[in-house]
C-alpha cells in the first residue's frame, strides 16, 4: 500500500470587495467542517498587520472555529515581528487547549514600512534579521510550552500544594531583540508543543539565495515540524525537498504548496489535473497544501470528489484515526526539555498516583 498523503488547505478568501463572511464566524466554521469531511490534516488561515486584505485576527477566527469542529488541525499565521513572544506562546498554547490538541502555528514576519508605522516602535528591518528574530520567538515559545512539565499540577492536599514547583522552569532566554524569564503562565498544552509550520520557497534553498531566504531556511531547519514548500515545478520541488530533508531529518513533514491554478476545482477537468498532481510518484514531499481559489466551492469539491478518489487509491485515510494534529501528521508528542530523565528503575511509585490526582 502506498504511503498516505498529508493534505491541508488554506481557508483564505480571495481578494474581492464583496467577498462574503470574512467577519462572520460561521464562515470559518463552515469551511473547516468541509476540510474535516475531506479528512485533511489541517487548515491554515493567513494574517498580517497590513490594512489589506480585510480580515480578522487569524488565531481568533480559528479559536472561534475550534469548538465547532472535532478533528481538523487549526493553523493560523502569527507574526513574530512587533509582537511579544510571551503573548504569542500563550495564545498558540491556548488555541491548543480550546481545540484539545489541534493547534499549529504558521510563523510569519512583517516586512513592510506600513506595518512598522502602525506599531511605531522601530523601523522596518531586513528580512534576514526578521527571520532570525522569528527563530528566537519560536525558541522562546517552545521553551515556554515546555516550562511546565506535564505532571506539574499535583493537588497535594496533605502539604497544601497545588503544583510541584520543581516541575516549573525558568526559560531565561536572552537575545538581541528580547529576553524572557518565564515560566509560562499557561500549563503545557495537550500536544506538548503545538505544530510549528514554516513557509519556504525553493529559491530560499538555491546557492544564490537571498540572506532573507537563507534565514528562513535556517528557522525551518531548526524549528519546523512542517514546511510548506513553494516550488515552480516538480524537478525543483524534488531537489528542494531532498535538500531540506537531508538538513532537517526524517521527522520533518514537507508539504508542497499548490497554487490556485491546480487547487481551484470548478469542474471535473480540474479534478483530474489535481488528482494527477496529488498521485504522482517520486515527488519527494509528504503531501500538499492547497491554496483554494474559492474556499467554499473548492473545499466542498475536495470533500465530495477528490478525497473519495484518493481513498480509493489508498492514499488518504477513510476517517481520522488520531485526535491531535500531531497524530494526523504522525509526529510524536515531545517530552519537555526540562523534564528530568526517567528513572532507570521501573519502580517509580509516585507516577500513577500523581496522574490520578491531576485528572
Amino acid at each position, binding site marked *: 500500500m502506498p504511503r498516505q498523503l498529508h493534505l491541508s488547505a488554506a481557508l483564505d478568501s480571495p481578494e474581492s470587495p464583496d467577498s462574503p463572511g470574512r467577519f462572520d*464566524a460561521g464562515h470559518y466554521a463552515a469551511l473547516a467542517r468541509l476540510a474535516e469531511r475531506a479528512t485533511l490534516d489541517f487548515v491554515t488561515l493567513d494574517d498580517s498587520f497590513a490594512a489589506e486584505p480585510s480580515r480578522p*485576527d487569524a488565531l481568533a*477566527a480559528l479559536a*472561534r472555529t475550534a469548538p465547532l469542529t472535532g478533528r481538523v488541525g487549526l493553523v493560523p499565521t502569527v507574526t513574530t515581528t512587533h509582537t511579544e513572544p510571551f503573548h504569542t506562546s500563550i495564545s498558540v498554547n*491556548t488555541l491548543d487547549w480550546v481545540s484539545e490538541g489541534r493547534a499549529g502555528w504558521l510563523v510569519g514576519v512583517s516586512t513592510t514600512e506600513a506595518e512598522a508605522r502602525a*506599531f511605531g516602535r522601530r523601523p522596518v528591518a531586513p528580512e534576514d534579521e526578521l527571520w532570525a528574530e522569528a527563530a528566537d520567538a519560536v525558541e522562546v515559545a517552545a521553551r515556554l510550552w515546555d516550562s511546565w512539565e506535564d505532571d506539574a499540577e499535583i*493537588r497535594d492536599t496533605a502539604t497544601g500544594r497545588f503544583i*510541584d514547583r520543581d516541575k516549573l522552569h525558568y526559560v531565561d532566554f536572552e537575545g538581541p531583540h*528580547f529576553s524572557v524569564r518565564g515560566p509560562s503562565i499557561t500549563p503545557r498544552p495537550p500536544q506538548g508543543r503545538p505544530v510549528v509550520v514554516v513557509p519556504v520557497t525553493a529559491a530560499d534553498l538555491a546557492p544564490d539565495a537571498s540572506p532573507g531566504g537563507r534565514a528562513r531556511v535556517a528557522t525551518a531547519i531548526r524549528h519546523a515540524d512542517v514546511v510548506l514548500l513553494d516550488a515552480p515545478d516538480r524537478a525543483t520541488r524534488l531537489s528542494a525537498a531532498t535538500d531540506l530533508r537531508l538538513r532537517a531529518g526524517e521527522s520533518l513533514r514537507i508539504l508542497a504548496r499548490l497554487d490556485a491554478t491546480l487547487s481551484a476545482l470548478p469542474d471535473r477537468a480540474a479534478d483530474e489535473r489535481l488528482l494527477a498532481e496529488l498521485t504522482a510518484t517520486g515527488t519527494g514531499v509528504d503531501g500538499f497544501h492547497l491554496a483554494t481559489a474559492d474556499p467554499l466551492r473548492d473545499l466542498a469539491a475536495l470533500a465530495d470528489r477528490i478525497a473519495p478518489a484518493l481513498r480509493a487509491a489508498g492514499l488518504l485515510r477513510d476517517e481520522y484515526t488520531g485526535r491531535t494534529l500531531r497524530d494526523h501528521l504522525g509526529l510524536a508528542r515531545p517530552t519537555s526539555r526540562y523534564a528530568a530523565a526517567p528513572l532507570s528503575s521501573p519502580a517509580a511509585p509516585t507516577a500513577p498516583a500523581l496522574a490520578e490526582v491531576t485528572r
Partner: protein
Amino acid sequence: MTDRPLKQIHLAAHFPGVNNTTVWSDPASGSHIEFASFRHLAQTAERGKFDFFFLAEGLRLRESKGRIHDLDVVGRPESITVLNALAAVTERLGLAATVNATFNEPYELARRFASLDHLSGGRAAWNVVTSSDAFTGENFRRGGYLDRADRYTRAAEFVQLAREFWDAGEDGVRHRGPQFDVEGRLSLPRPPQGHPVVIQAGDSDEGREFAAATADVVFSRHSTLADGQAFHADVKRRLAAYGRKPDELKIMPGVTFVLADTDAEAAERATAIRRAQVGPQTTIAFLEQVWGVDLSDHDPDGPLPAVDPDPDSALVQGRVRHGDPLAVARRWRAVAAEKNLTSHELVIELTGRQSFIGSPATVAAQIDHFVQNDAADGFILVPHLTPGGLDEFVDGVVPLLQERGVFRTDYTGRTLRDHLGLPLPGRR
C-alpha cells in the same frame, strides 16, 4: 426613593482566580485550564441571563521567597483566545478579558478586541489594567519601565488610540502623542459595538478619574453597603466633568457568596469554605505578604509575629500589596487582641469572609438592597469552585431576582452594550 422605579441589576461571572479564594482541594473542583470548565461556567452564566463573563490576567507567576507560589491554583490560558472559543458556544453573554496596557501595543490589541467583537457579534469587553513592575517586565520586550503616575497616562492614551483605530475609516489613524507615535488602519470594519465595552478596576484617585473619563464599567472592591455607597457617589460625581451621565458608567463590585437552604446552614458552609481557603500554609503566606519577611518557622496556631513588617520588602512578587504594611500589621494586631485569635484564625477572619451568605432568598434580598440603595449597579460574582461554582446561584438566586422585577427574565438585546444599557458610542 419611593417614587423611583426599581433599578435593574447587572450581573457578571468571574472565572475562579489564581488566588486562595478558589478552593482546589474540594472533590468537586475540576480543571482550571481545560476548555470544558470555561464552557460550563460561561453557559451557566448565560442560562442565568448574566451581562458578561470575566477573565482576569497574570503575566508572571507569583513568587514568594524567590520561589513560585505553590499553594493556590496556578496557571491559566490566554484570555482573548478562550473568549473567542466561548463565542462559539454562547449566543448573548458578554465576553470580558483583562489585558494589560503596559505590555501590549495599541494597534495589535485594538485589532484583537475588534476581532473578538466581530466574531462574537458585539459581545467584547476589555478590562484595562496597567501594572508595570520590573518583575512582570522580565517576560516582555519593554521590561518594567513606568512609574505609578505614568501608568495611567499611558493607559489613557492607549485607550484613546484604540478608540481611534476602531473609529477610523478609509483614511486610517495618524496619532502623535507623548506615549505613542503611530499611523495605520485596522484590517476590520468598525466593531459591532462601535467600541468594545471598557472596564476599569483601579481604586486609587487616578484610577477613579480614569474610570470617570474612560470606562463603561468599574470593577470595584467595595463590598460593604457604606463603602459601596461612598465609592458609588464619588465615582458618579466625577462623570459630569467629562460630560457623562451617571447611567453611562456601571459600578460592579467583585463579590463572593455562599448559598444553602437556610441561613444557618449557609453560615456553617461559609466557615468550612473559609477554612479550605486559608490553610496553615496559606496563613503563613498571607503573613509574609504583609510582613515581607520569611516566617516559615512561625506557628500559625500561635499569636501574630512579634517583629514589625519590612515596608520595602521584595519577598513577595507578582501580587499587589494593599496599603502600608505597618498600618495593616497594627490593625491586624488590634483585631487579634480584641477577639483573642491565633494567626490562622485572624487570617481566616480578615481575608476569607464572603460577601453574601445565606439562603437564596436572603442573598437575593441583600443584592437587591445594595443596588436599590446605590452601593452598586450590580455585581461581578466570584465563585469559589470550578466549574460548578455558579450553578446554585443561577438556579436559586436569579429566579428570585427576576420575581422581584429587578433582573431580566431574558436578554432583550444582542450586544453587551445592550445588556448594560450603554449607548453605541459616536464616531469621533
